[in-house]
């Protein structure tokens, strides 16, 4: 028996959940909108936990269109970052405890984001799942769908492009590159 025995399930789950929690908790805006994430393996589902403060049309009432856009963008970005970091989390290169202490890799930056509003958002929880259509070294293209009661009756869908973090983990190379690219 030369093969190493697999890690105990709770060790694997604990590591992945701790890493995800560290990523999500580091962003104040995600907490402000009260978005949480369900994880099944490497698949994430964003959950927009309904609150009265998310209302944009008090007469209907309906979720604010901006909240729907933000929820889609947060889910797209987090799903992309999660898949991007997954190998490093699994290999142990990224330590969840270090991540929780604030030592986080830079996250992708949104280049553009296009939202297609299909139905008005009801005053209740919404869910979203993203698909990374292409993950390049510099650019990524992500599709994302949101729904409320029925998965096949979408609330909105969106597609966006993201700039992947470049160079070293602390982003110094990226910062230098940005300065150099600006006309003086």
């Amino acid at each position: 028996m030369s093969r190493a025995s697999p890690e105990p399930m709770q060790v694997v789950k604990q590591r992945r959940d701790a890493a995800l929690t560290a990523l999500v908790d580091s962003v104040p805006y995600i907490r402000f909108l009260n978005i949480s994430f369900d994880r099944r393996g490497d698949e994430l589902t964003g959950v927009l936990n309904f609150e009265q403060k998310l209302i944009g049309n008090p007469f209907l009432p309906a979720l604010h269109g901006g909240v729907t856009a933000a929820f889609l963008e947060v889910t797209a970005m987090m799903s992309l970052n999660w898949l991007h970091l997954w190998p490093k989390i699994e290999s142990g290169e990224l330590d969840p405890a270090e991540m929780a202490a604030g030592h986080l890799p830079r996250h992708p930056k949104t280049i553009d984001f296009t939202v297609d509003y299909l139905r008005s958002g009801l005053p209740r929880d919404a869910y979203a799942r993203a698909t990374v259509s292409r993950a390049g070294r510099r650019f990524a293209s992500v599709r994302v769908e949101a729904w409320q009661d029925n998965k096949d009756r979408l609330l909105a869908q969106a597609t966006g492009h993201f700039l992947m973090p470049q160079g070293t983990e602390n982003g110094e190379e990226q910062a230098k590159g940005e300065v150099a690219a600006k006309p003086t």
Partner: protein
Amino acid sequence: MGEKLDLARQMMQMIPHAQELGLKLTEIGDGVAEITMPYDTKLIGDPKTGVIHGGAVSTLMDTCCGAAVMSHPLAPGGTATIDLRIEYMRSATPGQAITTKATCHHISRNVAFVRAVAMDDDTEQPVATATGAFSVEAGF
């Protein structure tokens, strides 16, 4: 003009999420609207730099575009977003308010087309631009 601004401000105050973000309407009329969002740490998207999350900018853009549509002389009532595309040109400078100006440049019986620009203190280089299509509703 002053009356219209007051009325529009009252409408904005009825939107819970606009209140949460502290959105302030500074100009409205003839299909043009301007709204400012003050800097707030709860809206941070990048904890390392303190830069505001793109989602908050989206909300500001969406609100401002909707206000521009409703302020158009040919708009009979409310509106809803059909499509909104946002381009993020640069990070907004931490600590500075973001101001969006939206123009409803075309309106038909059913659809209104809007363009918007978001800026911080550096008005030479926009933070983001947006283009959108909005529905034209008879009521609110």
